[in-house]
C-alpha cells in the first residue's frame, strides 16, 4: 500500500512538472515572445529589449526554462502592469474568495446530490424519472444563463439579495452580509454540479440496491431508512469521493463564468479581467495555479478514497 501511495505521489509530481513545462511553452508561443507576456502587449520595444537582457531572455531556451523554474520555486510569478502589483501578492485575496465560494457551492451540491441520488436509486420509478429529467436539464443549463436569470429575479425584481460583488467588507462586515452575497453565486455554481453528481450517485445507489445484501437486510427486518443510510450509503459513497475530486476542474470553469456574472472578486473573475486586458503574467499564473490545484485535488481524492476503502485499508 505504501508503494502504491508513493507511485501515486510520483505520478502527480510528474504531472505537475509537465504542467509547468507546458505553460512555459505556451508563453513562449505567445506573439512577441515571453517579454511581451511579462510586460504586456503595450510594452515599448526598448522596454522589451531591456527586459530581455535583464531577465536573461536572450539566453538559449533551455536556460530560460531553468530560470522559469527558479522563479516559480521562489514564488516569483511576475509583475502585473495592469494591476501594478506583483502577481503573487495579487492572487492571495482572490484565491481566498474563490475557495470560499467553491467550498459553499460544493457542500451544497454534494448534500443535494446525496439526497437526490438516494431518492432516485431507492425505489420509485416515476420519481426517479422526474429526477433524471431534472438532472439532464440541470447540467445543460449554462451557468451564465442561470446566473443572469437569478440576478434578474432575485436581485432586480424581488430585491431580496444583492446582484453581485462581495459587498464592502470594510464597511459592513459580518457573516450575514457575506452569506447574502454568497447565496446567488453559490446556487448558480452548485446547480449543474449537483445535477451531474446526483446522476452519478443515483446510478451508484441503484446498483447497490440490486445487491443481495439489501434484500438480506430487508429479510432481517431493517427499515428502508436504515437500509439506505446504514448500508447503501456506506457502499455508494466511496466512489463519490473520487468524483468529488474530479469536480475541481468544473468548479474553476463554473467559477470563471459565475464570478464574472456576479462580479465576484475571485480567481475566475481575475482570470477573465486579465484575459480581456491581456495581462499575461496574471493569466499565466492563474492557469498554473488552477492546474496545480486540480492535480492536488485529484491526489487528495485518491488518498481519501484509499483511506475510506476498508478493503484496501485492511488487506
Amino acid at each position, binding site marked *: 500500500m505504501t508503494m502504491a501511495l508513493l507511485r501515486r505521489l510520483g505520478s502527480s509530481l510528474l504531472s505537475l512538472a509537465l504542467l509547468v513545462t507546458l505553460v512555459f511553452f505556451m508563453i513562449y508561443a505567445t506573439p512577441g515572445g515571453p517579454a511581451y507576456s511579462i510586460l504586456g502587449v503595450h510594452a515599448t520595444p526598448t522596454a522589451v529589449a531591456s527586459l530581455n537582457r535583464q531577465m536573461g531572455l536572450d539566453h538559449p531556451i533551455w536556460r530560460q526554462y531553468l530560470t522559469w523554474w527558479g522563479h516559480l520555486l521562489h514564488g516569483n510569478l511576475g509583475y502585473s502592469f495592469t494591476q501594478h502589483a506583483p502577481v503573487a501578492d495579487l492572487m492571495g485575496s482572490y484565491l481566498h474568495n474563490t475557495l470560499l465560494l467553491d467550498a459553499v457551492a460544493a457542500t451544497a451540491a454534494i448534500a443535494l446530490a446525496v439526497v437526490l441520488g438516494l431518492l432516485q436509486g431507492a425505489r420509485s420509478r416515476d420519481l426517479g424519472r422526474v429526477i433524471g429529467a431534472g438532472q439532464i436539464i440541470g447540467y445543460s443549463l449554462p451557468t451564465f444563463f442561470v446566473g443572469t436569470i437569478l440576478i434578474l429575479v432575485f436581485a432586480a425584481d424581488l430585491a431580496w439579495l444583492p446582484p453581485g460583488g462581495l459587498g464592502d467588507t470594510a464597511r459592513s462586515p459580518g457573516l450575514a452580509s457575506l452569506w447574502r452575497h454568497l447565496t446567488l453565486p453559490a446556487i448558480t455554481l452548485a446547480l449543474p454540479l449537483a445535477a451531474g453528481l446526483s446522476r452519478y450517485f443515483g446510478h451508484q445507489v441503484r446498483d447497490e440496491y440490486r*445487491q*443481495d*445484501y439489501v*434484500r*438480506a*437486510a*430487508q*429479510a*432481517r*427486518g*431493517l*427499515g428502508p431508512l*436504515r437500509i439506505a443510510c*446504514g*448500508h447503501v450509503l*456506506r*457502499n455508494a459513497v*466511496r466512489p463519490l469521493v473520487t468524483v468529488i475530486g474530479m469536480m475541481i476542474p468544473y468548479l474553476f470553469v463554473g467559477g470563471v463564468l459565475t464570478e464574472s456574472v456576479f462580479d465576484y472578486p475571485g480567481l475566475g473573475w481575475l482570470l477573465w479581467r486579465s484575459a480581456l486586458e491581456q495581462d499575461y503574467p496574471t493569466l499565466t499564473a492563474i492557469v498554473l495555479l488552477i492546474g496545480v490545484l486540480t492535480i492536488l485535488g485529484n491526489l487528495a481524492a485518491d488518498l481519501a478514497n484509499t483511506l475510506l476503502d*476498508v*478493503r484496501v485499508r*485492511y488487506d
Partner: protein
Amino acid sequence: MTADTPALFVSGLTLGLARDRSARALVEDLSFDVAPGEMLAFVGESGSGKSLTAAAIFGLLPLGIRRMAGSICVNGTELTTLSDRRLRAWRGRDMGLIFQNPLTALSPSVGIQAQIAETYRVHKGGTRDAARLRARALLTEVGLQAVATPPDRYPHQLSGGMRQRVMIALALACDPALIIADEPTTALDVLIQAQILDLIARLQKERGLAVVFITHDLRLAARYADRILVLYAGRAVEEGDAGTFFTAPRHPYSRALRDAVPTIPATGRRLAEIPGQPPGPRDLFEGCRFAPRCPNVRDDCRRTEPAMTFDGTRFACLHPCVGTP
C-alpha cells in the same frame, strides 16, 4: 406457543405475475407446515418456485410477482394480512433467512458484529454494548470464536465458510422460531458444505428451530431433513418422510430425481436422465404438468390434473410408481 402449533403453516399459496394474467401461476396451491425442531427440505429444479415461496413468506416478492391466494402463518399469526410496516417487525425477529451467497448477502462495508448487533437492536432494543455482547456470543455459538472478539471484522476478511456461519448467526440474532435456508451451501465447496449443514442441523436440535432447507440436491435433503417436499413447475408433487421418500418415491418425477443422483462407489449403472425441459412460466397445459416428460404417462394424465393423495407419502400422480425398484 405450544408444541403442536406449527412454526410455519402455509396453505393454498399461489403466486403469479401481477401484470400478465395469461401466464400460469408461478407457484400454485402450495400447502405445507413445519413444526418446531423439524427440518423440511424443498427439492426442485431451478424455476420450480422454491425460492419464490421463501420470498413470499418474508413478504419480499420481487417486483411484478404477486401473491394471488393462500395464507401464511408463522407461530400461529397470519402474516398475509399484516401491513408492510408490521410485517417488518416479524422479519428477522421470528424468522431468519440464510442466503445462497454469503459474500453478496452480507453488507460489505459494515462489520459483521455490527450487522448482528444492528439486527438485534432493531427488534429487541437495548444498549449498543449489550447487542455487541450478544453478537459475540452468537458468533461463538456458530463456531467463530476467532472473530468473536474486538476489533470487528469485515465480510471480505473471512473465508466463504466463515461468512456462511456469520450469515447463520445473523439469522439467529433475535432467536427466531423459523429459519429458511435458501441453498445455503451451493456457493461453498463440498467439505465446507457438510460443516455448514451439520451446524444448521445442530442448531435446529439444540434450539428447537423449525428449518426450511431449500436445495436442488436430493442427497443433502435426504441426509439432513426430516421431511422432503418435491416441487415441480410451481406445484408440490410429493411430500413425505425423508427415509421412506428416498427408498420408495411414488411420484415418477421424485423417482427420476433420485435416480439421477450418482452414488459412490459407482454402481456401474448409467445415471437416469429426465428427458425434456421443465415448462416455462408461459407454457400452459391441461392435466399433469410432468406428463410430457413422464415415463408412466397415460392418456388421462394429459386431461386431468392429479390431486394430492395420501398413500404412505402424499403425492399428486394418477399412475404412481409402486414397489421399491
